């Protein structure tokens, strides 16, 4: 299998009035072609910023402070604006949380799909429309010809998210970054949309980076996951392995906090404390103040993300 995406030491900083913060700190991971990868973590852990940084879309006051993103062998952080625009929406597409907000309210579905395709291919409007109908059919939207003439407000939330996925798919990208694609939908629709994304990725051999805080969703769809905490990856490995045998104390805490892992009637577990604000991350391991196993070394020395005996990478001093 070929490597699709290789992220090395990616660091994103924001210079704010209150000081310089590091939202994404030396993140590295690899993605094979057609592989489905999950980025999991609490709000503010840097998942979305990582997603945006991959396609070089960090807006001021943020900037990519270091590291590299190689996509199909090309260094994305070194591309000019014009060059990266050809990658965005073409080879790498992004799907957002709220389908209400991501479709332009004044343009019809058809216009938005056609113009996306025409932004990247020299293709006649007629052909683009045909491609749009085909893509809408792929995401299982009934009577796609009629939908092309409709505006976003005429569709339901689930339908709209299908359209958003169709807009992303129309250029047949090799990687889709889905940033909490189901958070704004109700539970029954969530499962449908996730199943759709999964089958599309399989059929088209597309890579998927699924950004979510929902461990249940991520465990159903992805093959590998990375757990992020305070801008850093603390554990990477095969999804099954991490869900069944979490190694990092934070991952353990996250999993035991899931309500479905507790017998009925018992008090739910939670990780004590809150994630430190990015402005004052404690020295050493960023998790040390909330960790039950924390020792002197955790407050002094930051653990690296290292290969451990079980075959995954964990950033903890106490995992062998």
């Amino acid at each position, binding site marked *: 299998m070929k490597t699709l995406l290789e992220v090395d030491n990616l660091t994103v900083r924001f210079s704010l009035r209150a000081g310089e913060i590091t939202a994404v700190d030396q993140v590295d991971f690899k993605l094979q072609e057609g592989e489905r990868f999950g980025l999991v973590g609490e709000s503010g852990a840097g998942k979305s910023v990582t997603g945006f940084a991959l396609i070089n879309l960090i807006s001021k006051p943020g900037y990519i402070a270091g590291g590299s993103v190689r996509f199909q062998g090309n260094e994305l952080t070194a591309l000019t604006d014009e060059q990266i625009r050809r990658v965005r929406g073409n080879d790498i597409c*992004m799907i957002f949380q*709220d389908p209400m907000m991501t479709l332009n309210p004044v343009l019809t579905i058809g216009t938005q799909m056609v113009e996306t395709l025409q932004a990247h291919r020299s293709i006649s409007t007629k052909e683009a429309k045909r491609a749009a109908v085909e893509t809408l059919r792929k995401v299982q939207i009934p009577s796609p010809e009629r939908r092309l003439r409709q505006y976003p407000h005429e569709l339901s939330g689930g339908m709209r998210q299908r359209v958003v996925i169709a807009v992303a798919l129309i250029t047949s990208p090799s990687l889709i970054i889905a940033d909490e694609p189901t958070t704004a939908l109700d539970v029954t629709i969530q499962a449908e949309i996730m199943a759709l994304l999964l089958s599309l990725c399989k059929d088209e051999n597309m890579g998927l980076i699924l950004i979510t805080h929902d461990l249940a969703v991520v465990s159903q769809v992805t093959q590998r996951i990375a757990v992020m905490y305070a801008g850093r990856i603390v554990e990477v490995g095969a999804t099954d392995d991490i869900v069944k045998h979490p190694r990092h104390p934070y991952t353990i805490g996250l999993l035991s906090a899931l309500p479905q892992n507790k017998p009925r009637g018992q008090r739910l577990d939670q990780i004590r404390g809150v994630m430190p604000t990015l402005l004052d991350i404690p020295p050493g391991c960023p998790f040390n103040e909330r960790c039950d196993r924390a020792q002197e070394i955790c407050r002094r020395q930051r653990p690296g993300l290292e290969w451990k005996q079980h075959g995954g990478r964990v950033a903890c001093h106490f995992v062998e």
Partner: protein
Amino acid sequence: MSTLQKIRQSDLLHNFLRDPLAVGSFFVLLVLVAAGFLSPLIAPHDPYDTTTIDIMDSEMPPAWMDGGESRFLLGTDSQGRDLLSTILYGMRVSILIGIGAVVLQAFLGIFIGLTSGYVGGRLDAFLMRVADVQLSFSTYMVAIFIGAIFKTIFGVGLYAQVAVPFLIMVIGFAEWPQYARTVRASVLAEKKQEYVEAARVIGFPSSRIMWRHILPNALTPVLVISTVQVANAIMSEAALSFIGLGMPVTRPSLGSLIKIGFEYVFSGTWWITLFPGIVLVLLILAINLLGDWLRDYLNPKLYKGA
């Protein structure tokens, strides 16, 4: 669904028909605009054609008064022109200048406001300060200043020929900051919407995002100020003509007609001033009432449509 059906079922039409004031002012405006633009066809005389004007007919009262003649329904002005015809022609000039000036304002204002709001930073600060400087000169001052220079350089004869485009330019340039500010404010609000982020992710160039994605969403307030600005431009033109800096006497607008008549008001010839005055007031009132209705309709705080 056909376009006609869509229009018939739209909220806009429904809301409009339920508001008698809006319907009334729309009707008045329609009649005035139609009369103005059809004036060469419906006016009994051609006030621009000096051969048909007889100075002996001057200052005749309206037809229903003593000394009035049926061929001059509203009487004649000081040069013997039929007042009704002159008002119709003058209204056409006024409306033309009003719309022309607003088109120019809108063009400048949208371009500058959109660029300013979208690009932001230093360019934004610079353009908005230019707008502030522009706003600190009143329209009349700009017009008087430029008009005086123009007349000195090119002479009054040439000025009469280019008076319409000249007034459009002056009023248009003097009031673009209104538009620029409105557009900028609503672009700033739209820029933060997620669909703009999504458009950037899709890889559209900035110009396309600005013009095709943000602008249509930012147009609502522009629509509202456009109506008010047409009324304002017509009033500015009338005011300039009244102080003798607008349309020349040979091609009078409503404002210049009022001015012509004003010199004779105290000698009892009140009609030369009164009738164009009434028409001007009706025109402005109708536009402003329609503008008010449109603002209410488009204001999400007052109107909560699905």
